[in-house]
């Protein structure tokens, strides 16, 4: 399988280091909790999470709980910590304080689609899709199917540098299709996409949620149907 071996990157990320300097406030204002789900179907629980970039605390005292099949939109101005929160959830970045608990275990597989689309300029769209298919332990047919789904089947032979920003984003979306993973972390997934592309993301998210998947997405403008919303603006606090 494509995910064998090695210590998972996120193993270290969800434990608060002892002796952490910042104590998050004990009182949780309602705004920090975007609702709680029934215990049985909980997919992840975020408890008193704080993120910092350098000396600046982006947000702190963040609490929320997501059930299987739920979508959460992260909102807030640029620099409010939406991307950092997604990176923390993906296990790429250390949190400043607090814990993230995944109900299916701390090494539950997640998809993280960041700002950069991980598209290689010299490889064709078809080669890249086939690479990711093999990377996830799938075959070339799966790659073809995914390319068709995102509307790139006619751009198979175009190298990455010849793709438009929207097409690169569509190519990145194939990774979501190539490996079923319960948790999707999407950083402005609809940026650079046309109306049709936005609809595509919407339907991918809907299908994922229908199978019990969780979607957390930083998003501006129109969101997903039936998604909960979390505004990071009021959790932001700069250290003087």
């Amino acid at each position, binding site marked *: *399988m*494509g*995910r*064998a*071996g*090695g*210590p*998972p*990157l*996120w193993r270290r990320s969800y434990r608060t280091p002892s002796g952490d300097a910042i104590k998050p406030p004990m009182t949780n204002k309602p705004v920090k909790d975007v609702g709680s789900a029934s215990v049985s179907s909980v997919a992840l629980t975020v408890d008193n999470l704080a993120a910092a970039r350098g000396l600046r605390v982006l947000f702190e005292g963040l609490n929320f709980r997501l059930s299987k099949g739920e979508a959460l939109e992260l909102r807030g101005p640029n620099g409010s910590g939406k991307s950092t929160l997604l990176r923390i959830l*993906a*296990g*790429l*970045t*250390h949190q400043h304080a607090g814990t993230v608990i995944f109900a299916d275990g701390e*090494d539950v*597989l*997640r*998809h*993280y689609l*960041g*700002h*950069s*689309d*991980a*598209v*290689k*300029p*010299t*490889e064709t769209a078809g*080669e890249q899709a086939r*690479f990711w298919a*093999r*990377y*996830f*332990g799938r075959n070339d047919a799966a790659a073809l199917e995914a390319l068709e789904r995102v509307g790139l089947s006619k751009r198979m032979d175009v190298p990455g540098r010849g793709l438009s920003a929207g097409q690169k984003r569509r190519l990145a979306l194939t*990774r979501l299709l190539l490996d079923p993973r319960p948790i999707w972390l999407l950083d402005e997934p609809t940026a650079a996409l046309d109306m049709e592309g936005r609809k595509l993301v919407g339907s991918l998210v809907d299908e994922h949620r229908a199978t019990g998947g969780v979607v957390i997405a930083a998003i501006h403008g129109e969101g997903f149907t039936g998604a909960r919303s979390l505004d990071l603006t009021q959790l932001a606090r700069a250290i003087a």
Partner: protein
Amino acid sequence: MSGVVSVFSRELRLAWSGGGGPALPVGFFAAASSLTPFAVSPDAQTLGIAGPGVTWIALALASLLPMERLFQADLEDGTLDAYAGSGVSMEGTAAAKTLAHWIATGIPLAVIAPLIWIMLLGPPEISWLVVAVSALGSAGFFFIGSIGAALAAGVRRGGLLIALVALPLYTPLMIFGASTLNLAAEGGEWGPPLMLTAAATLFSAVISPIASAMALRAAID
């Protein structure tokens, strides 16, 4: 495993795409060593003394050239994020990338090494040994260089930083590899230094993926 294997074959493909790739270090190796007779002396006896060492230093420097882009490109375009979050071991990924680039660039370097050897008036009958020790040594140089590459991945124009990190760590390989060539040129016992070159390469092959993976995790944090 399929994750690491697919990264390996992708890197092998990518190494040859995009502007010559491995041809540049090979050209550098040939050009740098060609300057030796001008700098040292075209005299056969002097070249016989300087030649093996110069060949080995040029090989080490040529091995550093592909390092700057080894991880930097992946960090910039977000591929490293995708690798890191995928559950495939980062150590395996780093090792696969380094090994693929060694096959793409290190093997060609080893193949032209005997030409440089003969040009610098080394005895032609041991060309096979020059290929062997160059292949072995360049693998070590690549593995050590990839540690520097991972540390400098997030640094703009990190090439010099890679050299500063890697060159001191090249010392054991420099000593044993050059001794092998020197002793072979003199007709001496070159077996022990060759074994020590192999040992130094194996050691770096073990350390490098672990150190590189740690540096890469820090780079994306």
